[in-house]
């Protein structure tokens, strides 16, 4: 069946089953490979995207449930003022190790800073605990969020 969804401001139409998760629509149908597959079960956050600015797990979001919501992905973050600030902080603090989780981390962090521009450690923990970093770059993830929020150390 045909679904038309708005992704990073652009309307795209795909012909897929309604229960296909948004993650696989993005990756395999639309060739947007930034959102990553890690667990397929809502347990790692590698697939995190935004629906109307709210962080959701792309692997747990059937395409049929998206409706008219605006979808944002890591590919759209350079054009997003908050997302861009976070990307710059990630670069300034040299956060990535293998890098595989980092798109999902930035997506969760962007949703956090939109809601809570000056997060404390508890806010960061609560917003980011669904995002696994197997390489355990957490110390720098935390510092980069604070830097982007203007509440933490500079590089």
């Amino acid at each position, binding site marked *: 069946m045909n679904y038309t969804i708005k992704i990073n401001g652009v309307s795209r139409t795909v012909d*897929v*089953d309604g229960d*296909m*998760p948004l993650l*696989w629509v993005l*990756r*395999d*149908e639309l*060739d*947007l*490979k*930034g*959102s*990553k*597959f*890690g*667990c*397929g*079960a809502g*347990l*790692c956050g*590698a697939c995190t995207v935004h629906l109307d600015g709210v962080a959701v797990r792309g692997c747990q979001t059937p395409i049929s449930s998206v409706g008219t919501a605006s979808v944002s*992905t*890591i*590919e759209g*973050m*350079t054009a997003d003022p908050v997302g861009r600030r976070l*990307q710059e902080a*990630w*670069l300034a603090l*040299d*956060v*990535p*190790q*293998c*890098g*595989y*989780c*980092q*798109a999902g981390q*930035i997506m969760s962090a962007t949703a956090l800073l939109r809601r809570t521009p000056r997060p404390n450690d508890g806010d*960061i*923990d*609560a917003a*980011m*605990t669904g*995002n*696994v*970093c*197997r*390489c*355990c*770059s*957490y*110390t*720098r*993830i*935390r510092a980069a969020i604070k830097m982007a929020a203007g509440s933490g150390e500079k590089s």
Partner: protein
Amino acid sequence: MTASRRTFLKVSAAAGGALMLRATLPGAVRAEAPAEPLTAFVRIAPDGVVTILSKNPEIGQGIRTMLPMVIAEELDVAWSQVRIEQAPLDEAKFGRQFAGGSQATPMNYDPLRRVGAAGRQMLVTAAAARWGVPAAECRTEAGVVFHDRTARNLGYGALASDASKLPVPDLARIVLKDPRTFKIIGQPIHGVENPKIVTGQKLFGIDTVVPGMVHAVFQKCPVFGGKVVSANVDTIKKLSGIHDAFIVRGHQGADRQSLTDGVAILAKSWWVANRARDKLEIVWDEGAATSQSSKGFAEKAASLAQGSPASWLRRDGDAQGALKDAAHVVAAAYSYPFLPHIDLEPQNCTAHFQNGKVELWAPTQNPGPGQKLVAATLGIPESDVTVNMTRIGGGFGRRLRNDFMVEAAAISRRAGVPVKLVWNRADDMRHDFYRPAGFHFLKGGLDDKGVLTALSDHFVTFGQGGKLADAAQMEATEFPAALVPNLAFGQSVMELGVPTGPLRAPRSNALAFVFQSFIDELAHKGGRDPVEFRLAILGEPKVLPGGNGRGFDTGRMSAVLRKVAEVSDWANRDSLPARTAKGVAFYFSHFGYFAEVVQTTVSAQGEIKLDHVWVVGDVGSQIINPSGAENQVQGAALDGLGAALGQGITIERGRVVEANFDTVRPLRIDQVPAVEVHFLITDHPPTGLGEPALPPVIPALCNAIFAATGKRIRGLPIDTELLKV
């Protein structure tokens, strides 16, 4: 390093007046290891851009940044002039191309400095000749040669063509920079691919797109070594969106890295292929491994421990006699589970087989053996197997094995189209090469002053087909060997049907837990401070056998131990609140000396809160990239803590019970403490960082838990039930 005498440099001119430096380097760090030629390729273009080929796979250890830094430093160019290109797989040309064992630094540091310095010397010589001045009057900076007296300067690009015609300097005699003048080495240089990572560009194996490709899943037998009897592939083929489905037969006589039996399902989208597994019905011949279980292994190990070890790794003095005479004896049984690697990027590979040849796009840590394995399995020459290396979403040793490459190649050949094979998380967790489980039955004896006089270990480990299982060995030099007058290490072996392999800091990641926890038990038994007790065992500085031929320097270990006691305020640990405590441990692996202190608070419900971690490491005279180094060390310490707190694989009826991150639990941000990293800079050649910070953190945590609760952790992952008040 005498090895640099054998380094061989070739210089040539490339199209358009570029200078090319090609070096064949000695790869061996040990005299007994085969000399594996490595090769460095550097190109200096007329526009001054310096291109350095990165020949090894990048798994997040920062290799693609670090090795070029070393060349660029001695060449004396600005980091902004440097471009890094990934070399293709061609081991005939480049020597071994792999990532693992924290080997890159010890193998490459000195030789690559010499290559850079030789290039700089030739460019200076070319400039001096052009100006008619002595070379000694010229200096370089940021890719420019200066002659200050006549106020002249020329960029490297303008000199590249002249330099390419000069004779090659003798690398063994080349003058290297004084490390105090380093401008790149020792600076925090950031990962070269970070901009692509944070913007979500295609980089990883799983992002590969080949025109016309279809997506595949491959269902293997849940029991290791099981075979397909039959499968309803005709039903699967009729499902909507399915391109093809077929049975793949394992490669006869192949080892576990090679092709095993299974059913491939191909579809236009990976999700459609994976979903079809719900309808897949396979009749398996599960084979002999069904009799194996984690519980059965533990029972067997306990019964073997009643008898004598099957063999001895080491016997010094008379351990049994000394234990009888000891004033205090501690006996304890330690065990640790099988562990998966849980790379966040699931195993995957894209393959295109056509006209008898295959091209692969593979996130592998070890592409050379992968190429050979694919060739052997498909029965085609190695020269008909092309491997493209992609960035890797986590290695940790899992991707030293190349089963996913063989599967993709076989499926593409059968399907006749390019295929991207992606495992789901359950495939990844249930078809790993696990860190082997192990069992240790220890006894230690102290005299009436609390001095360690005797230690014995009966290690019950695993074997496969008459050999020890991969990564299931213990060395006869394991600490405290050679430091206790009466010591016996014995070993017994159980047959294992589960595949095993290296996991970050192989062997050490388990043995550190056992020996550094047991040493702690002995310290407490003797009423001694755990730091002071360890220092007493290490004794006067000396170099003991071990460390892959380089030796274990007890003086370096004592120094990191003293330093970690200092930075963690160990002396004042008694002032901490109830159920908050510090634990200490050290470990030597991959040439690195690490001592660590963990502070934890254990609630009355048994919940473990990680308060703080202090790490002190000695990896020699130079931290090449402090930014990457800190990230690696913090990551390694947290990795160990995550494994201790929430990870383990259970075998039941020959199969893995766990399937996802709900039961094998990665560490999450809300568990993460501050990790403070200190390096002791010593006068020794620099060594690697990816692994040696991991092993000691686990016993440091367990020792802290003991200090906080009085409960000794002798099995992993830590069972918090034991810690309830």
